[in-house]
């Protein structure tokens, strides 16, 4: 009985101590940001159980490093940046070799795009006529972008997102995925080409009507 109260007392003390020093309840993070982190993780690793683990690792790491959080960014973007690091670590541990059959995915479309090494006149890039910021405020745009990302072969998408979303250094991606720098450039080039094309076809040329309310 005494030991039990002692234990309870210790728990209370530690709760008060960390609560007082941090002023936050990490359990609220799960309710406030859990779904957001989970969605991002799921988009990147595709397997729900892995995504859940990444969210848990992220929040546990956040509890340990809360003292370093300066509050310069929002809580969510701070948690997001920790998750990005966890995603990078995940791919490092995975250490899979990128299959090169994926690289052939754009060969046919590429040859249509160019005639004698120049743009095929009917298929040259259109004028997007839009500010990126305005674009990014529109919820439907993100659905289109996600659909375009999901059309990339899995390995190609992984490389593109590691580079552009987690903003991993190219040398580190080469090391993690065991590919040469040249292959990395080829993969990124083709991923960009495919995404650009997909956005142009599915958003810019087929743009949903602008809502008057904004």
């Amino acid at each position, binding site marked *: 009985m005494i030991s039990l109260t002692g234990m309870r007392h210790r728990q209370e003390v530690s709760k008060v101590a960390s609560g007082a020093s941090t002023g936050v309840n990490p359990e609220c993070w*799960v*309710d406030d940001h859990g779904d957001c982190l989970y969605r991002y993780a799921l*988009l990147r690793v595709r397997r729900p159980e892995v995504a859940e683990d990444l969210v848990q690792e992220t929040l546990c790491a956040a*509890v*340990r490093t809360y003292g370093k959080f300066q509050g310069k960014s929002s809580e969510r973007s701070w948690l997001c940046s920790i998750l990005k690091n966890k995603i990078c670590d995940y791919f490092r541990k995975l250490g899979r070799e990128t299959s090169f059959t994926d690289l052939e995915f754009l060969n046919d479309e590429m040859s249509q795009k*160019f005639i004698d090494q120049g*743009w095929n006149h009917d298929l*040259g890039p259109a004028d997007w006529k839009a500010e990126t910021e305005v674009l990014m405020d529109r919820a439907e745009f993100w659905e289109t972008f*996600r659909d375009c990302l999901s059309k990339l072969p899995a390995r190609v998408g992984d490389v593109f997102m590691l580079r552009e979303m987690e903003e991993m250094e190219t040398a580190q991606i080469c090391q993690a995925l065991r590919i040469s720098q040249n292959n990395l*450039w080829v993969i990124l080039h083709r991923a960009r080409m495919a995404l650009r094309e997909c956005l142009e076809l599915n958003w810019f040329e087929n743009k949903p009507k602008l809502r008057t309310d904004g």
Partner: protein
Amino acid sequence: MGNAEKSSSSAENPSLLAGRNWFERLLVSFIAKRTPKCREVVRLLSQSMEVKLPLTTRIKIRIHYLICVWCYRYGQQLQALRKIASSLPEHVDNCCSETLPHSSKERIKQALRETRNE
């Protein structure tokens, strides 16, 4: 290049020097012969997102833009693509609707309590 010579195609390249009179046509073909072909330019543009290209290459690309608005747009759009992709994590709620199951949330909260008490 193709852009300059194939003006009979249905969609003309609306670039700065689109070959309107004999002099401009001459200028276009002069530039076309001395700058990389479009297919190579788009490859270089992607590469320039990773490493700084040599000065001469960058100048050639700039001059190439004078005769090819498509490559110019392509370069702009690659920049936009980078901005868009890096902003996806903060807009993820707009494109994904999956939710963390309640049981998983409780499990994570338990893990957080344990981490906190370490």
